[in-house]
């Protein structure tokens, strides 16, 4: 066996250039497979971790996915608003343990602004039932106070005490800025890896103030007057509910969906998340299929390389046979070569993967909000690696079997 290993190594080394190319083909296909797989699983985890321990999300009547998208992911726009009275009534149902009202529609320099109350900081949970943490500062108390997500703070360079202004709508390019009428950052949330990081949080009263014709270009006096006025919200966009008992979720959901005062939709976040993910699963499956085919192409490349070399190596095989090598040695020689090339390809592919993840993780995190961890190889990935290695070995059987038959047929005759 030592002899076979040595011969395999020396033989591959002799054909370095083509062997290296083959190794890189396998490496790149492995990189693609593992990379796609890792981004897929991490995106899924990251996705499922966006919201936790919330039993129902309620919005104006619309599709479940749409409601989930705008209330949790801040993607898209609500179809309609909910009357404040309806919210108050439903939030005071006996089964309800806590509620978080949210009001969307404004933006600050490309980040969504969300109006809510301080219950948000107490009850909203993400990941594995993790509550929001303050990196610095505290929840808002005054009308002009704002709490920003970690990503907003980092991207815009805000700290506690920074003054910011908000704009109605998504773009605030044409909005006049006045340094004497800003909101003040009073708190910065710790990073969560969810859309919370990209949100500017205001009190509902502040949102109401913005919408009730408050002119931010007004004088300091106007600002004082505003602060003293009591803004009672008339409408909100959605609200989240935590129940005392999970068993009541379905009955309350039905009750809300049949709410007589206005058409509402209540969704269970877990189910809606699952729905949303399964919508994306076709793309996900396609991506996986493509990377699987790339692996197949890589291994076929190796096969053609091995078969081509076989013709040149007939002489080598006859010499080895004359020296007393058994047909099974010839067989082992080629299987070992295929295995070595595949194993080297896999190792390089894995190294490339970590190199790429380390470089790309910050970019992916800031662009897409998906946190890619540099985790060690998971059992699932080990399985994929094993499949590819096994595939490489099996592919090696084809030239091995041919060499075996050739060496039996050629015997002591050297064919060139």
């Amino acid at each position, binding site marked *: 066996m030592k*002899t076979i290993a040595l011969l395999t190594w*020396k*033989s591959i*080394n*002799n054909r370095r250039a083509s062997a290296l190319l083959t190794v890189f083909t396998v490496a790149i296909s492995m990189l693609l497979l593992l990379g796609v797989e890792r981004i897929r699983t991490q995106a899924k985890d990251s996705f499922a971790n966006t919201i936790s321990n919330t039993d129902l999300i309620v919005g104006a009547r619309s599709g479940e996915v749409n409601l989930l998208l705008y209330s949790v992911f801040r993607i898209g726009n609500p179809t309609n608003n909910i009357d404040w009275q309806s919210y108050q009534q439903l939030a005071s149902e006996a089964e309800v343990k806590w509620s978080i009202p949210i009001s969307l529609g404004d933006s600050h320099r490309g980040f969504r602004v969300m109006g809510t109350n301080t219950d948000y900081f107490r009850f909203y949970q993400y990941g594995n039932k993790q509550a929001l943490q303050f990196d610095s500062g505290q929840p808002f108390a005054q009308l002009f106070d704002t709490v920003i997500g970690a990503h907003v703070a980092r991207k815009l360079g805000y700290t506690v005490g920074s003054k910011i202004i908000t704009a109605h709508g998504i773009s605030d390019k044409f909005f006049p800025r006045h340094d004497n009428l800003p909101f003040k950052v009073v708190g910065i949330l710790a990073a969560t890896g969810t859309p919370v990081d990209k949100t500017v949080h205001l009190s509902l009263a502040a949102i109401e103030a913005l919408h009730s014709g408050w002119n931010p270009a007004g004088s300091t006096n106007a600002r004082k007057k505003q602060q003293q006025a009591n803004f009672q919200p008339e409408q909100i966009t959605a609200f989240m509910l935590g129940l005392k008992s999970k068993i009541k979720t379905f009955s309350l959901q039905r009750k809300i969906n049949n709410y007589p005062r206005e058409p509402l939709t209540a969704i269970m976040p877990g189910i809606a998340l699952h729905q949303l993910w399964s919508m994306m699963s076709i793309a996900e499956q396609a991506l996986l299929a493509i990377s699987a085919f790339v692996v197949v192409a890589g291994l076929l490349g190796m096969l053609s390389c091995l078969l081509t070399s076989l013709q040149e190596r007939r*002489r*080598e095989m*006859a*010499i*080895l*046979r*004359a*020296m*007393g*090598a*058994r*047909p099974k*040695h010839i067989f082992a020689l080629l299987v070992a070569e295929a295995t070595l090339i595949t194993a080297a390809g896999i190792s390089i592919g894995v190294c490339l993967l970590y190199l790429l993840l380390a470089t790309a993780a910050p970019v992916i995190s800031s662009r897409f909000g998906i946190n890619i961890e540099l985790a060690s190889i998971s059992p699932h990935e080990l399985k994929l690696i094993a499949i590819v290695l096994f595939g490489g070995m099996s592919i090696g059987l084809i030239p091995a079997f041919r060499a075996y038959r050739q060496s039996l047929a050629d*015997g*002591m*005759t*050297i064919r*060139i």
Partner: protein
Amino acid sequence: MNILELDNLTYSWPKQQLSIDIQHFSLLQGQKLFIKGPSGSGKSTLLNLLTGIIVANPGSSIKLLGQQLCELSGADRDKFRADHIGYIFQQFNLIPYLSVIENVLLPCRFSDTRADKVATAPRQQARKLLRKLKLSDSDIATPVSALSIGQQQRVAVARALIGSPELIIADEPSSALDHDNRSAFIELLMQECQSSGATLIFVSHDPSLEPLFDRSVLLQDINRQGIRP
């Protein structure tokens, strides 16, 4: 003592007529035999039979060193070949990616018997053998593909002789050499076979080499199926 005895040896390639039919043939230990065999006389078939690569038809007998080859399993024949036979091809004897010394020591990798005989210092043994075959230290350090054909054939002789196998089979080893080199090569080969006590079977279609050997046979004379010229 006979090193080789063939009795009633027949062989036919699958779905073909007999290509070997030797009633009786024997070879004395230490003899240097010249087998004249033009193409078509069954030369490669005979060599494949002697080395145990192929199996003779039932009822045949190939007794080599007292061992009945026809009774051995494939694996045992491979082992027998590795242990007792040194083989020299017509040309392209060497494995291009191994060094001269590694090429010479290759049989020892497949035969413990031969490895044991050079166990004390295999590389020195190989070097000694190569020097006796008139290869200089700088030749030995050269990659095999950069050696001349004559040098390559001498490396092949060293490889056949390493670990002193009892039988050396040379299949037209000098046909790629020019005339002057040819005689020198054969003399060296004979000399080294002599000093290691090996029996030599030398196959060639060149009758001019015949006088150099102890004994000469025309393959068609012993093989009744061979094509007569």
